[in-house]
């Protein structure tokens, strides 16, 4: 199973799929920084002073990561960044979901909102699973390269 998951062809497929998702989401947000800043504000995590800077930066991190995943440049760094960002983003979504549930009484499995991911209003339980998958893919790419590079010769 481990061999199959870490097979170079499988890793290449993960990279391409994730790169397409990252490029789509990143490019969409690059064009609407103010709207993205507004969505970031709704998470109530960042101070107001940082919202615009993060709204300008974050989409470009996605775009650069997407390009790196396709070209293979800085691959392990990209994989680590992807896992880290998605882990933090997953926690942020869960926190916002909890805030909405506490305020409105809406159940977790009925929860939908625009998470600022670039895909509009999404079903939150699915979104959290997607984020966990992206964390897992990042780790797979990270460790698949590590096995190749760090094996003593």
């Amino acid at each position, binding site marked *: 199973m481990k061999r199959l998951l870490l097979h170079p062809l499988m890793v290449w497929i993960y990279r391409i799929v994730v790169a397409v998702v990252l490029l789509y989401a990143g490019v969409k947000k690059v064009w609407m920084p103010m709207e993205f800043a507004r969505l970031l*504000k*709704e998470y109530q995590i960042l101070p107001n002073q940082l919202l615009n800077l993060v709204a*300008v930066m974050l989409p470009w991190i996605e775009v650069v990561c997407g390009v790196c995943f396709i070209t293979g440049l800085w691959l392990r760094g990209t994989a680590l*960044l992807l896992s880290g960002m998605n882990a933090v983003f997953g926690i942020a979504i869960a926190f916002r979901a909890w805030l909405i549930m506490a305020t409105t009484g809406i159940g977790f499995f009925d929860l939908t909102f625009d998470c600022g991911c670039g895909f509009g209003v999404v079903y939150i339980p699915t979104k959290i699973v997607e984020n966990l998958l992206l964390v897992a893919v990042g780790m797979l790419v990270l460790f698949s390269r590590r096995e190749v590079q760090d094996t003593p010769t």
Partner: protein
Amino acid sequence: MKKLNNRIYKDRDVSLASGAGMAVLKQVVAILIVSFLCGLTFNVVSPNGIDILNNPWSKRATRNLTHHTEYDTQVVEDEAIVFIGFDRACQFIDNREGIILDARIPEAYRQGHISGAHLLSFYEMSKYYPKLKEQLEVSPSILIYCGDISCEDSEFLANELLYMGHAPIFVYKGGFEEWKKKQMPVERGTEEGEVQ
């Protein structure tokens, strides 16, 4: 001898692992620097570029912002801003109590808005406010909404309008998402109010 070999391999693994770790961290820093430079450059040349240091969520717009929980059962008074639920919003619209304002961005407004609502995007107040100034001055009251219950733009806009001397203001917290879910009449159209 076997112990010595094991020790050598173990030390080599640790050294390789820490070296590899540093390399990965350097890559992460490189990606962040490239992204930062791309972001700043693009923001300068883009027509949609924004001021990195200042945003519309000024101290004035966000002052006294409180979180309310029971919109449908309890009307919450906050100075001249009144937070209302779906039933009261329907009543406001049916009785034509005043002007209805959509605080969202123009694109969201064009995709759909409450019938009869005017666009006054909180993010482009300088563009839309002059067009509605006269109507706002003669309107006995104002109803403002934005996207959904987690959206705060309607409250920010209410604070700004209150500061400009417009009152009373009703903020419909359920917003357009709740309105749509309740299958109430919506319109698609341009920001000038021309229905498509």
